[in-house]
């Protein structure tokens, strides 16, 4: 708020702000340091600990398989970051990805079409779902959480209708009794399985490229600036002349698009239209985006933080798996990390200004 009462100490000098921030800044504050770098330090410590306990953890191949494992989650998390930036939320990303997975399988296996068409159909579908979300929220005035929750359920059901609830696989029996003639093309499967220099998985490259593009878009372009402005003060942004409604719809379209890319990569890796593959995607990616708030003390949704957040969760899970931790410990640890990261962001930081 802008009222004078937000200044905690009564300071008689008129240029109070200049004095406070200009010269009176403490040389080093341990708390500020922890808030800023805490998560990165924990990530580094984690890598070292896993490496000491299990030397195989640190070889290049394992490092890249961590990245491969997080690439789909990261893509979804990047998308949801954009909706978080406008102070919205997209709960439908998980089922959008699942929808994209089923749609690509359907196009190739049952409709017997090529790679390009499958990819294009998925991307259009993802953007369209985002568009619908945006319209429901902006024009239908449904709160973001509820609109995207509804969309999530809708998609979960919809993706199963064309196949009668069955997973799509090469040569599967269709409803008219004949066998499906199509197959996953090699080019499509390569999207999920090819490794550049026999080392770097293609999904990792796709994810990194997408992350860099989105980072430039959010941090350097005027569109990103306006999106953050909408998240900060929608009314002020509208009165500053921005077409807020269009921006909000666009944010959900970006979210849907990224989710559909994630779905494509997942389909390419799994190599079948598995009805259950997308189930944990939503929570993992939301966790990654929220952990991202704590990276470098950003205290807001940000692309770099989201990428680090996804990496953080991936490293943790990979390390725990290598150390033979039971599967049920993983969700527990994920939750623990999320709670602490949020505490970094909101709890410890709240005693600062504002």
């Amino acid at each position: 708020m802008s009222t004078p009462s937000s200044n905690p100490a009564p300071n008689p000098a008129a240029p109070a702000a200049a004095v406070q921030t200009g010269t009176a800044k403490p040389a080093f504050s341990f708390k500020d340091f922890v808030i800023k770098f805490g998560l990165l330090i924990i990530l580094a410590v984690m890598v070292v600990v896993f490496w000491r306990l299990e030397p195989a953890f640190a070889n290049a191949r394992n490092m890249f398989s961590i990245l491969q494992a997080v690439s789909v989650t990261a893509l979804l998390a990047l998308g949801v970051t954009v909706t978080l930036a406008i102070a919205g939320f997209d709960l439908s990303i998980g089922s959008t990805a699942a929808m994209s997975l089923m749609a690509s399988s359907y196009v190739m296996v049952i409709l017997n079409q090529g790679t390009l068409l499958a990819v294009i159909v998925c991307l259009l579908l993802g953007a369209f779902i985002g568009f619908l979300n945006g319209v429901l929220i902006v024009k239908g005035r449904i709160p973001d959480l509820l609109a995207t929750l509804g969309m999530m359920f809708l998609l979960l059901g919809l993706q199963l209708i064309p196949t009668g609830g069955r997973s799509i696989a090469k040569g599967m029996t269709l409803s008219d009794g004949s066998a499906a003639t199509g197959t996953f093309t090699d080019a499509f499967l390569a999207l999920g399985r090819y490794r550049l220099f026999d080392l770097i998985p293609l999904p990792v490259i796709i994810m990194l490229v997408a992350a860099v593009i989105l980072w430039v878009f959010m941090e350097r372009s005027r569109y990103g600036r306006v999106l953050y402005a909408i998240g900060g003060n929608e009314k002020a942004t509208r009165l500053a002349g921005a077409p807020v409604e269009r921006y909000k719809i666009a944010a959900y379209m970006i979210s849907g698009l990224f989710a559909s890319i994630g779905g494509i990569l997942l389909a390419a890796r799994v190599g079948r239209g598995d009805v259950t593959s997308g189930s944990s995607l939503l929570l993992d990616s939301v966790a990654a985006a929220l952990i991202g708030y704590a990276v470098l003390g950003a205290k807001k949704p940000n692309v770099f933080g989201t990428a680090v957040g996804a990496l953080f969760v991936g490293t943790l899970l990979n390390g725990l798996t290598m150390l033979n931790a039971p599967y049920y410990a993983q969700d527990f640890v994920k939750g623990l990390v999320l709670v602490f990261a949020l505490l970094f962001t909101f709890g410890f930081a709240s005693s600062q200004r504002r």
Partner: protein
Amino acid sequence: MEVGLVFVICQDRLTIDVLVARLPPSGLEEALCQTSVEAVFGMTEPGREVIRIRGLNKRFGSTHAVIDVDLDIKRGEVLALMGANGAGKSTLIKILCGVHPADSGTMEIDGEMVDFRSPLEACAAGIHTVHQIINDGVVQQLTVAENLALDEICRPEGPMLLSRAAITARARGIQAILGLDLPLGKAMSELGQAERQLVAIARALSHDPKVLILDEPTSSLSEAEAARLFVLIEDLRARGVAIVYISHRMSDIRRLADRAVVMRDGRVRAEFIRPLDFDGIVHAMVGHRVSEGARAAVAGGRTVVEIRDFAITPTSAPFDLDLHEGEVVVLTGLIGAGKTEFAECLFGTATPFAGSVMIDGKPLRAASPQQAIAEGVFMAHEDRGNSSLVAEFSVLHNMTLPFLRQFSKLSLVVPDQERRAATGQVSDLAIKCASIDVPIGSLSGGNQQKVVLGRWLIQPCRLLILDEPFQGVDIGARQDIGHRLRETAAGRATLVICADLEEATEIADRIIVMRDFSVVGGHSIDGLSLDALVAEISGAGTHATFA
């Protein structure tokens, strides 16, 4: 706690927070057993002081919001507390009802010294407030009966299960005491504003207040609804309740007030008793320090804006208005006169009922701020915190928000250009900030306002509208803003909305007066007659004096 209550808390946490803790010790229960009015409202001799305030001071940072205020509030009296925005009324009220502690000064209630630490303590001492936003005082999703009995419902030691009959009975009891007849079974959300207001007041009254503070109770009421409220207020006065009535509506004050206290710049400037001198009140409110003819008017150049047969609402009188290049025109009038509504019609956030607006001879097509800005109409809104600034953004990012396109190549913001523009505004307006990258919240109110102005000076425009640019702005910053406005005035028309006449005369070449959503007069700053101006603002000519 049961599910129902939790649900209520989700819907309206603020109300419940206040409620749960302010349960009266003996409270409702006892009050309701008594059916006689006197028992509830404890009749004592009218005219005796309930509250005696001496030497009250309150500072917020560098702003001295309340300065050496002495005030007595008497039983059975309606005290009108008046003053323009930022005069210190709301701070004074917040001290009274325990929201802010005073920095110095004393407050006595019935001769006993009090020092409220929280609103609950003020409530316990018998001071109850019905805030301007009445939705803060009622829970929309519940019925009228549930709202009236809400205090009982929220009592921690109350029964686990509530019967509808018990709630209704309790609500009836409260109604009977107040002589109200409300539709108990209806949901709050189905009620009109007046009825909601009455419910909120009834809730406050069920605590047997000594002092009832009503903050702009009629601001959203129709005439008939207001009349209904007045009857209740008059009844309460007759019962000996002290009523502090905050309103900008002169007609309310005419009807109700026994005494009027006018605040300005944090001080009590004048006190009026019946018969109230309304011109005197307006004088005290909007500018007793105004020096007439202090400055020569700058003659306007080419006509930029031509407004013809402009009717803001279906019932307001149509008016014509021309704005010229190079002149600064101040639009003044009391709050509720329609100044902001008029500006919103020009900026595309509201649609007038009728009339035409031409800019440079071409019709203005502005159905949204985006279009208005494209047509060269810029506007800095009132209430910069909510309408102009993004709290999370730096000075730089706040300043350049509307004109990012200008600083972008291939949609990417070019930092050099952006920073150069912002730095230029910072030095032109003498904005005090450590750097343009500090958060906007670290600046003082005056400097924040300068940032808002600087934003709209980055690009040239045809019409610049500033709505109350001096709210919460210290005198130094006010002068800087005024100078800069004048320096840049050539080449555009400038319209400043400003209720304070002292501020108005500082910057205006021409002052136009708005009342009842219509322009009722215009005066050049040369040979300005303050009396004529004040008469136009208050509408004294049409209403004569208080009977």
